[in-house]
């Protein structure tokens, strides 16, 4: 079951630009109200509306009433279809078109800021295809979001698109995360190509974020095979030099390998390449394919049943583990992975796009199984899926 991350209502005319706030359902002291969006099924009295960044309500507001309200409640979306998915402490954006998007959920371990939709690669299986839009000005919103996120949050992701295209703004965002969320571990997904510029890696390291990891994909030990997957000549070289720079400046990196028909054959050789050339990597994630975005039109070329590449997966995993490297298997169902490497399988799929099949109900290891991307359930999965009964 997917989680709801958006809802719709009717904006009052005073909502002229998007605004962010922390959700509250209780009346707050006036000095902290500007950071909050008050959420109420029925609107309270005047004094209890004053001073908030915005107000969300299921109640329907007539035009006359709206005029009244406009004097002390500057931003409001009313007649909102559903609000149950929003919780105290979540952060939402109220948009002039009446949409309410959840940007942060306090109860989730899978929060991420999508900082740009632009990308300098064009991966054949990209789950979030890049767009050629100028979204650079959104940095203000991302910075505001960091101010509103609960500082006790365990983990936060920064993703895209390609976040490094923000250049100095990305560094600024990470700097702010360090200041405002000092105990939140920060995980940035990047193709690593821009760290080819050593100064950029050095400046990132200089921030001194105490718990930062850059997750960078590497799809092959052969330049042209990697370049083909990311559809960019020279990307392999840039990424490798980038990784070396990050390693040299002591920024922790994670290597992410998506396994599909173009990448599974040399998985063991790639593991050895990583061990020999990128020994400093903090983590290696061997990941199953997510059937979203470009993976859909390319599916017939990319799809391979995980049971078919089980030998390569076992060899690569054990090679790295036997050499003391921290390796995990993501996005795989336990029933398609040989039991000897089950201990490396992580429940990696974000809760809002994670699902199981009806037959999984009988499975005795379902609790430890990562399950499926919701998208895979519609588009296809291994023919070997079956409940494990022990």
């Amino acid at each position, binding site marked *: 079951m997917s989680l709801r991350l958006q809802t719709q209502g009717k904006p009052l005319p005073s909502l002229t630009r998007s605004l962010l706030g922390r959700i509250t359902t209780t009346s707050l002291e006036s000095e902290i109200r500007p950071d909050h969006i008050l959420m109420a099924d029925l609107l309270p009295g005047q004094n209890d509306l004053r001073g908030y960044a915005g107000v969300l309500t299921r109640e329907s507001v007539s035009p006359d009433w709206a005029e009244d309200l406009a004097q002390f409640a500057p931003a409001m979306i009313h007649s909102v279809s559903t609000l149950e998915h929003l919780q105290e402490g979540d952060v939402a954006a109220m948009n002039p078109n009446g949409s309410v998007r959840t940007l942060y959920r306090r109860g989730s371990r899978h929060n991420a800021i999508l900082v740009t939709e632009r990308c300098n690669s*064009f991966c*054949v299986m990209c789950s979030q295809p890049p767009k050629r839009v100028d979204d650079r000005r959104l940095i203000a919103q991302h910075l505001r979001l960091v101010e509103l996120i609960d500082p006790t949050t365990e983990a936060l992701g920064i993703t895209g698109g390609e976040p490094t295209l923000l250049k100095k703004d990305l560094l600024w965002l990470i700097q702010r995360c360090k200041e405002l969320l000092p105990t939140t571990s920060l995980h940035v997904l990047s193709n690593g190509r821009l760290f080819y510029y050593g100064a950029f890696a050095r400046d990132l390291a200089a921030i001194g974020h105490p718990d930062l990891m850059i997750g960078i994909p590497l799809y092959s*030990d*052969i*330049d*042209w*095979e990697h*370049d*083909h997957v990311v*559809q960019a*000549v*020279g990307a*392999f*070289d840039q990424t*490798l*030099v980038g990784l*070396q720079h990050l390693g040299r400046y002591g920024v922790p990196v994670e290597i992410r390998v998506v396994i599909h028909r*173009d990448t599974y054959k*040399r998985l063991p*050789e790639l593991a*050895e*390449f990583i*061990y*020999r*050339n990128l*020994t400093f990597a903090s983590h290696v994630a061997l990941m199953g394919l997510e059937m979203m975005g*470009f993976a859909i*039109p*390319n*599916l*017939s*070329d990319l799809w391979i049943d995980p049971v078919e590449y089980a030998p390569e997966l076992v060899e690569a995993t*054990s090679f790295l*583990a*036997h*050499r*003391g490297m921290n390796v995990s298997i993501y996005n795989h169902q336990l029933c398609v992975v040989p*039991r*000897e*490497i*089950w*201990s490396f399988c992580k429940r990696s799929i974000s809760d809002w796009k994670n699902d199981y099949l009806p037959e999984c109900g009988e499975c*005795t*290891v379902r609790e430890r199984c990562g399950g499926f991307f919701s998208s895979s359930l519609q588009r296809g999965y291994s023919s070997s899926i079956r409940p494990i009964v*022990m």
Partner: protein
Amino acid sequence: MESARSDKPRPPLFRPLDHYRQRTEGYRLLPFRFMRWPAKEVLLVNDVGEFIFLEDQRFKAFVGHRLDLTDPRYLDLKAKHFLLDTESNVPIELLATKYRTKKSFLEGFTKLHLFVVTLRCDHSCHYCQVSRVSTNRSKYDMTKETAKKAVELMFRSPSPALKVEFQGGESLLNFEVIRYVVEYSQELNVREGRNLEYVVATNLVPLTDEILEYLRDHSILLSTSLDGPEALHNSNRPRKGNDSYAITVRNLQRAREVLGHDRVSAVMTTTKLSLGQPREIVDEYVRRKFGSIFLRSISPYGFAVRTGEALRYETSEFLSFYKQALQRIIEVNREGYDFVEVYAQMLLTKMLTPFPSLYVDLQSPSGAGLGAVAYNYDGEVYASDEARMLSEMGDKTFRLGNLHEEGYEEIFGGESLRALAAGSVLETLPGCTDCAFLPYCGADPIFNHRTQGDVIGHRPTSAFCSKNIEIIRHLFGLIREGDPFVKDLFTRWATGVRSEPMTRYKVS
């Protein structure tokens, strides 16, 4: 449905693999060395120790620039940086990084500091180079004044980690100076902030409860000698009363109780008498619950040479012994007991990992002076333990200076060490430059000097060379045989990853 799908061309947005497989015409060879292997194969090793076996025909095609890029080994050779087929310099940069890592044992300069606190000893082992059975303290003991100078000199070394090893003679006979060195170095270390480690090499005979408590309180490790079963040990290591084995075993137990089981290790020396007992020696170590054994051949110094023919054996005899012992060690592991052979472990680290070994006796340039230094009881400073043994035989070639007469710059920057370093870079030595095993081996200029008359030496007649070549070849052979248990075991030794990560999944 299925066929209709695959007939559909990929969206034109995406380019095919061939578009990215642009490369220069042909390929260039990157530096590597090679060695003929049985069964019509060739072993190729590059400068950073990565290796690949190729069939003769394929090897010829490769070096003749005729290997096609559709050959499955082509990609392996490319990924391991044996060939270069792009204009990019990134593969060279990766190689450079790997090379720096392999040579990183040089970082920090001298790390191992041997303090020869006395020459006196109650044993008179046949193979011992230097010990004196004497009660004359003033003649053979290091004084506190000398020890003080040595500690101060040690701290001149830039290394963030310093290892102090107390040697003899029987080092514990001068425990007072051991204690002085520990305390003075810790006093200085309040300001210096180095990572200090102490090891006492001892036959365990003088061990008292008081000494044990001191060692425990200062986290000091013990290294002792155990040559094998009782008869062999006592024969190799004679002392008055002929009870060396009994004392070693008894005091080993006491030491483990006070210091902790893993705080005491042992080394063995192979004599002519040992040669027939590889299995018994290994089993003795296992019975005594050691986690490792170091199978050492006898060295051509001191008494070992003076006692002459009676104790000498051929390198081939040692190699046969070594292989049998290693075989037994593998069996022991197969039976479920974790047990390491230290020399093989050191070589395997170089063969199977991107890292160097920190073992100072097999490096290029040699670890003598650069990685280790010996402060003799009389204040003389030598490039290594072997160098000071040589001096006891009257040959002071590798004397670096004197604690009371010279300073750090003169001792570590002087002619003696410069000559030693310059003459111990395998990459420049005749017979080594084109040896496939160079990245795994090391130089022993002192051995060359002692046995062949100069630091460069003559490889075809060098016992050091034939021993190492054959051990490395043997290890490769075992890997090549493909026994998965042996491959896993060797990987565990090489990487030091002791845990069993492939744990069976259990449903609770």
